[in-house]
């Protein structure tokens, strides 16, 4: 498939994109997260697309998954309204505060801290401590 974006043309391996997207969608809807951090590497490394094509389009792709996953979870009675109403304003507020802080911290440091934090959390989930 050939994708045209702002005057440039890119060849895309649709099969790899769809199979990878499908797998990411299964995992992310099963565990209830967005899936962006997996989708972006798939499209940049796997499909060899430049970042400026990926930022918007990957969001659109995972949005399909999120909408479907939300509907299915709702159908199975996994949605708790009160819980949602507690978390939703916090998520919105977080999205508003974060850009103000982002200017003052180095993304490199944040990512290193995040990696360490994720590993600690993973150890916790494995029950190692």
């Amino acid at each position, binding site marked *: 498939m050939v994708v045209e974006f702002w005057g440039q043309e890119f060849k895309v391996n649709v099969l790899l994109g769809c199979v990878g997207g499908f797998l990411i969608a299964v995992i992310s809807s*099963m565990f209830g997260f967005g899936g*962006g951090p997996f989708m972006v590497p798939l499209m940049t490394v796997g499909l060899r697309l430049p970042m400026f094509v990926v930022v*918007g389009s990957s*969001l659109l*792709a995972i949005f399909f998954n999120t909408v*479907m996953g939300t509907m299915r979870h709702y159908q199975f009675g*996994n949605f708790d309204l009160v819980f949602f109403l507690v978390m939703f304003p916090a998520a919105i507020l977080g999205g508003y505060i974060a*850009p103000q802080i982002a200017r003052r911290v180095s*993304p490199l440091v944040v990512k290193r801290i*995040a990696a360490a934090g994720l590993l600690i959390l993973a150890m916790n989930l494995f029950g190692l401590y």
Partner: protein
Amino acid sequence: MKRYWMSLTIALAATLFMLYQNGSFAQQSQEGKPAAATEAAPAVQGQAETPQQKGVPAGEAKPEAKEAQVPLAFQVDRTALNNGGIVTITGTAPPGTPVYIEVWADQHVRASRFDSEVDKETGKRPYVLYMTYDMPAFYKILTPVEQKENLEKIKKEGSKWSYSQALKDLGADAAYSVPGKIKIERYQATLMGSIVGSRGELLPAMDEKENKRRSMQLVKARFRNPDKVFAPVVESQPDGTFVAKLNIGSGSAPGTYNIRVVAGKTPVGQVAGVENNISFPNLYFSNAGTSINLFGPFFLTLAIAIFGVLMGAGGGFILNPLLVSIWPLPHTVVAGTVMPTVMFSQASGIVNYSKIKFISWKLGVTIGLAMVLGGFIGPKLTEMITLAQYKFVFGWILVILACLMLWQTTQGYLAKHKKEQAILKEFKKRAEEAALAKASRAA
């Protein structure tokens, strides 16, 4: 700022729609009602009939036992609690008989268990999903203090413990009555059905005995931990008087808690009720079956949403495992509620990008269609795994994510990323200018 208002409006509209669909309005007004009406006396009388009706097997032995021994009676020291507390139960039983106390909440929650273990008789895997909406939100059997050692033994078995075996080991069979009568639906799942995402075919209702056996497995699936369903706290004196301190933890469901005493095998035809009140800022999450101080999840979500944006990954990755670890929330509810939260921030992002035509719809929709399929199957699988499996797999997902994060801090990636970001900025600028030019032309 505008996009936040927009997403908020969408959220409100969706919420109203869901409320309308759910009939939640009706449910909530019901929840409020019983608070006033639970003076101990009517509650005791109204429910006193039920144990007698259901105590059919024990009922035959009962008259003789009653004649021969001291009449059983018990009192509770309080009728109302505020977000949990300790209730002292005192009473007299025939000297020398072990006393068990069954406690259950009127508030119901959902419980499900997917049976895929090989059947010992036929050697086949049944693939049957057992489900109930009537599991008490709180269920506990208080056993004599002498059973403490046995309980410790059960706890040592780890996650492999069996509830029915535990009932036998602790001598608590006769005390187990309420969950045995809940309505359980079972579905025959098939491989094809699971792929399509259906629960499978509804099987005919089970007989009483089978229902009771399956209900025990559901009790374990719901409460998971032996400590949640047993407490060795009944202290009996040689003269037959007994004292038990029932601890209803903070975060338990609101509503009436029923208490019933069983001496040996004989149930007492009396049920006492204790009202547990939950007040702001504690909220009861009816689907999760637990009440939580609302500021806990609020600030956790806030902190993680901020951190998520900074590290360039959605918050869901860190939020979900923390939610299931910190609070006794079922993983299905966590997954099912975090997803819609993520959805709205994604929607606002898409709106922003589409305004400046920065989305390749062809590419996004093509991969999106494959992802819709995945999103159809995933939630079904959440239901089929246990919390332990959820945590284990999530652990590996986090390890992979951590590797991705570290990879993004390597020199090679950074050099490439810098170039990419410059191109991204350049194109974005162009896109924004084009959108602006178009807007001014239109005006």
